[in-house]
């Protein structure tokens, strides 16, 4: 299975990443323990696991925002060194800038990179159109709903033209209806551009619906427990109703059930 992707070049290579945090009482906490992970170009990879398994930490390391204690991350054959607009990031709680209007938010990345205003305007219009928020160009984020803010965050990331999209529970704070709508919209966007995506979520359904592959992690210390290929047909319309969907869902759930129970206490 997935022979096409196996032969295509590796886009992201996470090599034996370990991360130690010094906790309050001076004891070391091992958040990630020798994590290996690869994503092919154009692949949608989800990382699921109970809270405390270090999945967000792993994503921030790939983004270049955190320095791993050990190991390295190689993107496009080169080890990363700090954050770059080529590796876009969308965070859970709306991290778009409240003091900028919607269009100024989307224009942020191009503005930082020194793109002339005229070009920027065109680009912003294009991406606002894409996420369906052209009408709200001059609004401030406080005037928008949570789902709209996350769409702005996605447009803001896409405007930087990243080849790799890192998404940290982007729909985690939304109500379940908005969540399903945004999942479908993300699928449509992704199926058009086929960018490489690393998608952190604690929703198994979401991971199965969106991904080519799911990395299941276990907590304390964070380790890769299992990697599951999702061979559901694309485009994924009405995928939630397929029996295969439920089968995959149960399989992943049984893989992390024990740890999830322990994590909750």
């Amino acid at each position, binding site marked *: 299975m997935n022979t096409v992707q196996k032969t295509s070049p590796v886009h992201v290579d996470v090599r034996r990443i370990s991360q130690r945090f010094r906790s309050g009482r001076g004891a070391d906490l091992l958040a990630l323990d020798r994590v290996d992970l690869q994503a092919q170009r154009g692949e949608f990879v989800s990382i699921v696991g109970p809270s405390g398994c270090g999945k967000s930490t792993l994503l*921030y390391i790939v*983004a*270049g*925002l955190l320095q791993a204690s050990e190991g390295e991350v190689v993107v496009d054959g080169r080890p990363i060194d*700090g*954050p*770059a*607009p080529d*590796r*876009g*990031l969308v*965070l859970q*709680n709306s*991290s*778009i*800038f*409240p*003091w*900028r209007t919607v269009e100024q938010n989307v224009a*942020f*990345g191009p*503005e*930082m*990179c020194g793109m002339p205003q005229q070009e920027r305007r065109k680009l912003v219009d*294009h991406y606002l*159109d*894409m*996420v*369906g*928020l*052209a009408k*709200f160009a*001059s*609004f*401030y*984020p*406080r*005037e*928008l*709903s949570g*789902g*709209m803010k996350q*769409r702005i*965050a996605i447009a*803001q*990331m896409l405007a*930087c033209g990243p080849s790799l999209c*890192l998404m940290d529970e982007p729909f985690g704070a939304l109500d379940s*209806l*908005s969540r399903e*709508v*945004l999942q*479908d*919209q993300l699928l*449509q*966007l992704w199926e*058009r551009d086929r960018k490489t995506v690393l998608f952190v979520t604690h929703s198994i359904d979401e991971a199965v619906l969106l991904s080519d592959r799911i990395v299941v992690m276990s907590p304390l210390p964070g380790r890769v427990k299992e990697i599951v290929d999702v061979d559901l047909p694309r485009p994924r319309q009405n995928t939630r109703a397929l029996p295969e969907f439920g089968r995959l869902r149960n399989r992943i759930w049984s893989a992390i059930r024990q740890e999830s129970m322990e994590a909750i206490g």
Partner: protein
Amino acid sequence: MSTVTMSETGAAEEGHAPASPVLPSKGPTRRSWRTLAAIARYYPVFLIFVVWEALSRLNVLDPMFMPPLENVARTFYNEVFVTHELLDHIRMSFMRAGAGLALASVVGVSAGILMGRVRAFESFLDPVISALFPMPKLAVFPLLMVFLGIGDASKIALIFMGCFFPIVINTYTGVRNVDKFFVWNALTKGASQRQLVWHVIIPAALPFVFAGLRVATSTAFLLIVASELIAANDGLGYLIMFAERSFDPALMWCGILVIAGMGFTVDRLLLTLGARLFVWQDK
């Protein structure tokens, strides 16, 4: 080009229609009504004036302490439109307070940002500020006069010292409180350290800076009058002192009310400016 559109499904997903940010502008009558209403809100102040005038007329108040408001108004008119002396005093006080405040703003905001961003600055300035902040700045004024003379320099230096602390402390707090995720978002969008400060740290910290500026302004008014009461040849503090020594209570009250009015006006202006600057903030 953009075949994928989120709009149709997206509109249904959002629960509420966002409120229109622009208020429909009604005619001038609506505006003048609002101005009248704004003034009417201060009726207790006018009430106090009326009671003052009435009590003076009834000879309840000793005219050596509280002359009739009418006399104060007459003095005010005379000082402003005939001799123009009051205007000179206002100008001098404003110049000194403004210079000290401006200096404190520039130095205070810069120092606050550096403290919030550079560990070395923070560890150096934090104990210094903690030690000096609670000290009453007026206590240093005699020393400042020894060094800088009794002219403008010592007063501006005093106001600088008084205003610097609220500004630097607020700026520092604002910079330290900038959400980590804003910083991360900017860094992954290609912002340099300099761009980060200009486009994220400063706008995010600005409401804090502004609060510090308001406190500093009232401190500036306090210190300008105090320093002019102690030693000056002009300015509103001097005018009040002069009026006291020449047994002219109407002139004294004139100076007091002018200072009160100035403080009030400047604070209102700052509030209005703040409301404009921070339309983006969640109330």
